[in-house]
């Protein structure tokens, strides 16, 4: 089984040893093929406009061939579970004609010129874009490398390029019987100029690796406990730091008494930074105990002290009038007046924490003999973090080296447009003497209470059907806080509409003649962030439960009724039909169970899910889920299935159990996995996934599995019990219904 380029050598862990460029230098290397041509500074922090971002990249920054015949791809995308190491390596290997066993992957350095996300303009991972934006780029990189190897072979064997073939990592010339491996030719190939012409890429029908279940490159290390995460980095003289944060968002330190904390054995120092009080210690336990012993007087006069209850009421009040127009068609008011039957519902969604398994952490070292700053972290926006750290140290971005680490999940958590966490880590490092590496750890309590939540959302929907059962009017008012406002991504807001607030509703696929979708953007001091599938977390839920209820009101079948309205949307229709067929083939619904369906497009991919549930003491138990996904060309079907499974489990846990609540004074009530429930294995349904065959370029898979599960379960629950769950999570709605 293939493994990462990272070394398996464990002790002592020196991060440098695990970086490909240096570790392979010890092996009489090879050749970096091709070299970075006219590499500019990593002056990376500057955001670019999307049109500039689309410019052609230097095609050669991604493939490294070593004389030991390993091929390492440099992944511009962070690997935190969604599989980009494997996917990007597959794309390059396909065009190179490589053998999968020789492939490795490592994180690329921060460099906006070479490694920007073509969808963003900065180096970063998100929006389920890793494969989509790399599909041509990585294949071109592989094809270029292959062309150079072929040309080196042709020169050495004195035969024409065209007579040379490359298969399974072997370059061969049939007539002469000559053969060579990539490693054998790497050095000569490096001396050749990069080809001028864009090498031709394979047609999908010629793919050998793309479309197959290649084993993931990072599985072995992760199974054996050898994968290195940021938390696992230990350096000489390193201090471990934790920060005492304010009890409400926007609070600051008034005064503090650290005398008891300083007496804790192992505590080395205590400093104040704008984010709170940092406790530095020789080990993690001492740092945590030291923090517990601090006495801090907080100033919350400028903080967000409103409770969730108060904020919820403000959102609800706003929803009573239409907001800024996101979509408008026909005359919705009139249609709803004329309707034979109408339905009106209000929905609410709480703040949600991402709670990735590895909490936020970083190791930063400010060298004392140079301007150099090194940062090891699970950076999801590398060139943005680089710029922000540089600013803290008052140095140029090119002096900041970002060593992107494997991260224990993210789901959006690590993609902070203002680099808030990286800045906190940089400030904590800057507060001690240069030359001392500082590892900043957020405990789980910091993570759950630390904000950057999926925002609170309120929807009001009105729908009407005529006397023939046609849906003739749909009015949807969405109230939420903008995620991009005030961030470097603010330019996405057009005409008062943050697209991430309305996506999935403003582009309603159902043909309804009179349609209005509008938005009120609320302001709070609660920091909010994208959470796996972003706006689709709430729009899929409202749209897919509301349409289900309207169809029921019209006496229509949930599948056939949807299909009638999706005539212009063949891909939605196809996944819907497929999921329906999968469920049908599984046999009739058992007597005490019900099935519910939902279909939703997000991040360019189409997913339909059918959930089969029963009522266990007044709460849904989800037994099975059938899932059909159309994400274009399936680069690695096994990874896609894993993402559907994971997306379903992640979404299901949230809609059943999760809410972050601000209590009186704005303090977050939840603090750890005891109060912020995660789905557990006994709550995980059986999942069957079918991938639609396609030759359209690939689209996202990390997020699209998440949106449909909530409405699929809610629709099943309504059909089983008659209860309409419109206030999430399920657990609080169901409890309220019981007490009512």
């Amino acid at each position, binding site marked *: 089984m293939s493994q990462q380029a990272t070394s398996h050598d464990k002790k002592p862990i020196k991060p440098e040893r695990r970086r490909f460029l240096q570790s392979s230098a010890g092996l009489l290397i090879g050749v970096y093929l091709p070299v970075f041509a006219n590499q500019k500074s990593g002056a990376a922090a500057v955001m670019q406009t999307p049109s500039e971002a689309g410019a052609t990249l230097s095609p050669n920054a991604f493939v490294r061939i070593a004389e030991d015949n390993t091929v390492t791809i440099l992944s511009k995308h962070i690997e935190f579970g969604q599989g980009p190491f494997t996917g990007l390596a597959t794309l390059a290997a396909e065009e190179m004609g490589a053998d999968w066993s020789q492939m490795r992957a490592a994180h690329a350095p921060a460099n906006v010129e070479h490694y920007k996300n073509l969808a963003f303009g900065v180096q970063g991972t998100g929006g389920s874009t890793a494969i989509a934006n790399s599909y041509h780029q990585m294949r071109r990189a592989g094809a270029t490398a292959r062309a150079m190897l072929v040309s080196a072979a042709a020169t050495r064997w004195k035969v024409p390029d065209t007579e040379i073939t490359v298969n399974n990592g072997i370059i061969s010339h049939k007539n002469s019987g000559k053969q060579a491996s990539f490693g054998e030719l790497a050095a000569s190939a490096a001396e050749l100029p990069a080809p001028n012409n864009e090498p031709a890429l394979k047609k999908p029908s010629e793919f050998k690796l793309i479309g197959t279940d290649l084993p993931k490159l990072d599985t072995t290390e992760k199974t054996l406990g050898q994968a290195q995460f940021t938390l696992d980095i230990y350096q000489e003289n390193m201090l471990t730091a934790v920060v005492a944060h304010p009890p409400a968002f926007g609070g600051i330190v008034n005064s503090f008494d650290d005398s008891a904390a300083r007496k804790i054995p192992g505590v080395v120092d205590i400093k104040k930074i704008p984010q709170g009080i940092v406790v530095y210690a020789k*080990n993690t336990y001492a740092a945590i105990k030291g923090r517990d012993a601090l006495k801090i007087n907080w100033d919350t006069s400028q903080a967000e002290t409103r409770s969730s209850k108060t904020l919820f009421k403000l959102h609800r009040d706003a929803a009573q009038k239409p907001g800024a127009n996101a979509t408008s068609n026909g005359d919705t008011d009139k249609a709803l007046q004329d309707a034979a039957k109408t339905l009106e519902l209000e929905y609410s969604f709480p703040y949600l924490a991402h709670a*990735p398994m590895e909490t936020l952490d970083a190791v930063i070292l400010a060298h004392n003999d140079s301007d150099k700053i090194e940062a090891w972290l699970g950076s999801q926006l590398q060139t943005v973090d680089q710029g922000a750290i540089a600013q803290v140290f008052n140095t140029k971005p090119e002096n900041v080296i970002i060593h992107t680490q494997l991260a*224990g*999940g993210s789901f959006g958590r690590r993609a902070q447009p203002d680099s808030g966490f990286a800045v906190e880590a940089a400030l904590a490092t800057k507060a001690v003497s240069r030359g001392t590496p500082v590892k900043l750890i957020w*405990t789980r309590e910091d993570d759950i209470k630390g904000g950057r939540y999926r925002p609170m959302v309120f929807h009001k929907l009105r729908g009407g059907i005529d006397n023939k059962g046609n849906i003739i009017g749909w009015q949807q008012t969405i109230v939420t806080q903008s995620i991009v406002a005030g961030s470097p991504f603010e330019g996405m807001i057009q005409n008062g509409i943050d697209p991430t607030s309305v996506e999935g509703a403003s582009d309603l696929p159902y043909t309804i003649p009179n349609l209005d979708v509008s938005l009120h953007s609320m302001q709070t001091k609660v920091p909010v962030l994208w959470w796996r599938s972003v706006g689709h977390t709430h729009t899929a839920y409202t749209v897919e439960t509301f349409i289900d209820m309207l169809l029921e009101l019209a006496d229509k079948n949930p599948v056939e009724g949807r299909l009638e309205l999706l005539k212009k949307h063949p891909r939605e229709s196809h996944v819907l039909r497929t999921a329906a067929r999968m469920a049908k083939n599984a046999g009739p619904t058992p007597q005490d169970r019900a099935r519910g369906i939902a279909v939703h497009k997000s991040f360019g991919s189409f997913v339909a899910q059918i959930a089969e549930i029963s009522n266990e003491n007044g709460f849904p138990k989800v037994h099975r889920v059938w899932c059909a996904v159309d994400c274009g060309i399936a680069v690695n079907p096994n990874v896609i299935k894993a993402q559907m499974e994971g997306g379903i489990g992640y979404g299901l846990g949230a809609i059943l159990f999760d809410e972050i609540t601000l209590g009186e004074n704005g303090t977050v009530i939840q603090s750890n996995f005891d109060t912020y429930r995660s789905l557990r*294995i006994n709550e995980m349904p059986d999942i069957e996934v079918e991938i639609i065959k396609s030759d359209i370029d690939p689209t996202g898979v990390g997020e699209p599995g998440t949106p449909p599960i909530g409405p699929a379960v809610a629709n099943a629950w309504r059909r089983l019990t008659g209860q309409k769950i419109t206030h999430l999570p399920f657990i609080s709605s169901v409890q309220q219904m019981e007490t009512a």
Partner: protein
Amino acid sequence: MAVTLTINGESKTVNAEDDTPLLWVLRDELNLTGTKYGCGIAQCGACTVHVNNLPRRSCVTPIKSIEGMQITTIEGLDGPVAEAVQAAWQKIDVPQCGFCQTGQVMSAVGLLNSIRKPDDADIDNGMTGNICRCATYVRIRNAIHDAAGILEKQK
């Protein structure tokens, strides 16, 4: 304070406070970083090790309380059950982010040590203490069944 622990068959003396959780001693003092921190309050299982062959949450286990006992971490895990579990884990490509997986493997080995052929309910009982935020649960279940099958064939 000096506390002597038996870890992966070796005796280790560490200078740490008696109440220090084993988790932080493993990681911060002994460089055994396969054991992870996820919650610190026995809710997630990321820190699972074996103490006298039984799964134990190292984040809430003070070192003083396990002096003289046999502690096994993922780094010292071996034997046919461990091999079967780790082979199944790789065959089924269980990990996503991987951060919970060492704890999952430790719990799975513990489960198979006590029940050779667990059914789904046994797996639920043995594994509910281990959270996977990536929700790799379908594969964890399959891999445990697969490992049980491997062990059965070896008989």
